[in-house]
């Protein structure tokens, strides 16, 4: 090819000005989970300066949302943090429901909480599996991905899809639990305990793992807050800051759970905080299953809930209701709202601006991964080149969420 391709980024520093080797890591790299470019200035093996470039997966989420109805854009929301797509769905639906003044039904509330915790487990499994694989622990990867695969198949039985579900609806959920779903859930929870027990046995006191992750990528609580870290990274520094406890939403006030915190804010703490958070999620799921009482999933509000298909074919008013909801979208009153949920990576916020129509005026995502990339240099500078990979893995940057 004769065409010279322009470089998409402008680095913050170049090799000639400093007595350091400048190395480019990414954006296509085996160990960067998600597409990210780190330009590092090295003194031997030690990282002096780091310039982080994201945006390689910027897919124009906000602009796309402005051309779709509030209901239609649900698949785009799914693909933000694609490891835990249900949490994105429910956070977005919560924001729209707040703007519309809708209160979801109790069954929907418990189901959403249960599925949020289930998604949180899937995300943490993916993060831990990938970061352990990068350290060479292939067995841990295979065990955890197999477990995650069972969860994917289980969620496919409920939603129809394995990875990106589009299961949340404004005012409710797409469909109710099929028969046997809860029985299979109980089986998976037992399997989970067995497999994570093995991972704990392989990793927790493993000399190599401790050497590679203890005291690597450390950050203090004050620094973490200054650079906008939330979620497991902030909790690994020792601060028990969790939106599920501090600003509870869904059914979290009715559940008993602990918020695991770390000691140093290093990679080991982030690994352990995630493992413990999964245990807490299992605890919450076990509390939620008995709370599920029969009832409607979607609120009986014509502004947002699609009428029953049989009625759509029989009655003119249901037909028109369905038509208006599909063509114009749910009419959301003018105003703005910011709703934040505790996603597996941190605070996932939706800032919605409505002009009163069925199409959003603005859908902005406050993405935890993006803000973490702004502070990533604090975790990388001063450590070794080989530490970049485990530190980056422990931060769990998800490209879809970071770049939107």
């Amino acid at each position, binding site marked *: 090819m004769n*065409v010279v*391709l*322009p*470089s*998409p*980024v*402008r680095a*913050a520093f170049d090799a000639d000005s400093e007595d350091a080797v400048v190395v480019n890591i990414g954006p296509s790299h085996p160990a960067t989970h998600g597409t990210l470019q780190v330009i590092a200035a090295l003194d031997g093996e030690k990282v002096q300066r780091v310039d982080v*470039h*994201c*945006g390689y997966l*910027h897919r*124009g989420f*906000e*602009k*796309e949302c*402005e*051309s779709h109805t509030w209901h239609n854009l649900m698949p785009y929301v799914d693909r933000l943090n694609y490891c835990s797509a249900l949490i994105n769905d429910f956070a977005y639906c919560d924001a729209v429901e*707040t703007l519309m003044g809708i209160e979801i039904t109790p069954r929907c509330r418990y189901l959403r909480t249960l599925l949020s915790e289930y998604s949180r487990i899937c995300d943490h499994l993916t993060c831990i599996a990938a970061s352990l694989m990068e350290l060479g622990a292939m067995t841990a990867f295979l065990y955890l991905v197999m477990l995650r695969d069972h969860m994917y198949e289980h969620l496919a039985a409920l939603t129809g899809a394995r990875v990106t579900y589009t299961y949340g609806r404004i005012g409710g959920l797409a469909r109710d639990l099929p028969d046997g779903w809860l029985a299979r859930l109980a089986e998976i929870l037992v399997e989970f305990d067995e497999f994570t027990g093995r991972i704990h046995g392989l990793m927790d006191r493993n000399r190599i793992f401790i050497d590679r992750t203890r005291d690597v990528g450390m950050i203090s609580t004050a620094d973490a*807050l*200054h*650079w*906008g870290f*939330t979620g497991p990274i902030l909790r690994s520094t020792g*601060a028990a*800051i969790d939106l599920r406890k*501090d*600003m509870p939403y869904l059914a979290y006030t009715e559940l008993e759970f602990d918020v695991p915190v770390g000691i140093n804010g290093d990679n080991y703490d982030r690994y352990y905080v995630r493992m413990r958070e999964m245990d807490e999620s299992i605890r919450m799921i076990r509390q939620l299953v008995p709370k599920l009482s029969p009832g409607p999933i979607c609120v009986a509000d014509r502004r947002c809930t699609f009428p029953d298909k049989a009625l759509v074919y029989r009655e003119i008013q249901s037909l028109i209701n369905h038509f208006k909801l599909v063509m114009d979208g749910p009419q959301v009153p003018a105003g*703005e*709202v*910011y709703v*934040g949920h505790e996603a597996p990576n941190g*605070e996932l*916020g939706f*800032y919605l*601006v409505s002009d009163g129509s069925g199409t959003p*005026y*603005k859908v*902005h995502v*406050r993405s935890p991964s*993006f*803000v973490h*990339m*702004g*502070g990533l240099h604090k975790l990388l500078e001063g450590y070794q080149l080989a530490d970049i990979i485990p530190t980056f893995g422990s931060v769990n940057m998800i490209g879809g969420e970071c*770049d*939107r």
Partner: protein
Amino acid sequence: MRDTVLASLRDDFADTAKASIDRGALLLAVDPQEVIATATRLRRDYGFDLLLDVTAVDWPGRPLRFDVVWHFYSTTQRVRARMTTAVAEASPDVATLTGLYGSAGFMERECHDMYGIRFAGNADLRPILLYEGFVGHPLRKDYAKEHEQPLVPYRDER
């Protein structure tokens, strides 16, 4: 308890901002020159230690076209705050908050990419989500959604 905290915050800020409470969050509408002072007060005096988000909203009909919006959170008081200011299209300049919050860096770069808001004092406003050579600001309402600016020329045959 949160309501009393919010009410006292609203009263405290009423002198320099249009303060109100909306859906459990403090809303502060300030002039562009009050941005740094208000943010400093929020951080230093009221414990809003997390800057969550910096974004903008485009209202093409208005003389002050852009609303720049900041979201804050206090981890100690568990309260949210939203600060907004309005700037014109001809001079979309506001002060940077990178001196107060490190997290402002990347978020201001994104806001600049998408809307063209210039953050005075932020020396690094390189494209972050877009790429070098991209012309225009896509989230403005007058940028056509499907207007692509490819870096690699397309092949002839498929």
